[in-house]
């Protein structure tokens, strides 16, 4: 896939001050689903520094086009047409090649295509809500979709999710595995969302807000949002061939 030399260094320790803690009582479901004991820390072994490889041959032609990948022939999903693009890098700023990105979202009215979803907004018959792509050798990706709507959810009596797209990301090692969400620049709902507010660090929240990118629009077709994703960095293997006793 790439002529870059495979890396074998362990991943840097996760900076938990920028991630949500397990227990966040204002997001009520976390109360019974949060481990209460300390995590066991261990420097990554081969089991963590390796990770699955996804070949671009798994991708269908429309996998990165949510406007058309579920639509009837000649039809398209309803909503504001947007391009989402950006780069997956690690904490060293190195592009992450061959990273599988999977994304899912509500339709333009804020409704998910899911049997447990009860919001009264209409289902769009031409919108499935999922897509995927694999980053190129420099870590770049892009896909086309409609801007999702905000939606209410049962937590507090009047809690609403800001418009968002869910992202699942694979890096090169299984311990880089990440699920996150992308928000839209200028959305006033971001700062009152109990799920956004599980993140204790303002800069870390801002890092999840995609910028409107008028330089990458398709004129008369779609506007663009730029969303970069950062995965854990890893140590160089240089000077690390010392055997450790224990």
């Amino acid at each position, binding site marked *: 896939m790439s002529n870059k030399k495979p*890396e074998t260094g362990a991943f840097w320790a*996760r*900076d938990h001050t*920028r*991630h*949500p803690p*397990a227990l*966040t009582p204002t*997001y009520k*479901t*976390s*109360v*019974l*689903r*949060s*481990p*209460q*004991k300390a995590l*066991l*820390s*261990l420097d990554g*072994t*081969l*089991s*963590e*520094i*390796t*990770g*699955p*490889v996804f070949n671009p041959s798994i991708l269908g032609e429309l*996998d990165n086009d949510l406007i058309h990948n*579920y639509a009837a022939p000649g039809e398209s999903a309803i909503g504001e047409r947007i391009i989402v693009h950006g780069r997956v890098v690690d*904490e060293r700023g190195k592009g992450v090649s061959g990273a599988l990105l*999977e994304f899912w979202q509500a339709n333009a009215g804020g409704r*998910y*295509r*899911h*049997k447990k*979803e009860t919001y009264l907004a209409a289902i769009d018959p031409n919108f*499935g*809500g*999922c*897509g995927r792509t694999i980053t190129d050798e420099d870590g770049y990706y892009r896909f086309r979709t409609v801007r999702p709507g905000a939606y209410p959810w049962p937590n507090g009596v009047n809690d609403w999710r800001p418009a968002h797209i*869910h992202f699942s990301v694979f890096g*090169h090692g299984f311990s880089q*595995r990440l*699920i*996150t969400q992308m928000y839209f620049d200028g959305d006033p709902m971001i700062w009152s969302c109990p*799920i956004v507010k*599980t993140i204790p*660090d303002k800069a870390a*929240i801002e*890092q*999840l807000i995609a910028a409107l990118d008028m330089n990458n629009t398709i004129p008369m077709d779609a506007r663009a949002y730029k969303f970069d*994703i*950062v*995965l854990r960095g890893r140590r160089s293997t240089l000077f690390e061939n010392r*055997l450790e*006793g*224990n």
Partner: protein
Amino acid sequence: MAQSLGILKESASQTAGPYVHIGLLPNFVDIKGVYESDLGSAMVNEQTKGERITICGKVFDGAGAPLRDALIEIWQADSQGFYNSHSELRGTADPNFTGWGRQPTHMESGEFRFETIKPGRVPYKDGRLMAPHISFWIVARGINIGLHTRMYFGDEEQANSEDPLLARIEHRVRVSTLIASREGNNYGFDIYLQGDRETVFLDI
């Protein structure tokens, strides 16, 4: 002031939410025709080398109820102890085994099920062999950051007693939370998010 290290910060995790299946297992929730099949749903084929096993279990919340909306991924070595990964430089893994699987917990019973093979042993950093194990990663609504843990095999007592990760568990009574019990070709592995039997989760 010294020069900046120029280091970026990892993007913050957010919960996978209640509709994670739409993105990661669309066929499972009847979104048909976008992908041929759900990624990671089949781990083995007829040519895969190794002993066929099944892993079944449930994920329990702090009130003792099984999660019916969770998603689990596993990652493991092949039967010879090689990972099918670019970072595997010791040898070539079985081309008929990617080592990665993804399954939901059943929407009524809460049970998850993986059909796979028993992995070989993989060396720790100092060259000692770790006991055979499978890496687990659990996400769901209400889980703010994916939970990593490992499953070890109950019929590998000798190997387990020498395993460097198991040796690091300070409260020895908790070691058993990582060990699956064998019955025929089936291993039972329940995961407890909270409480007396809370599974040992890893910051790895």
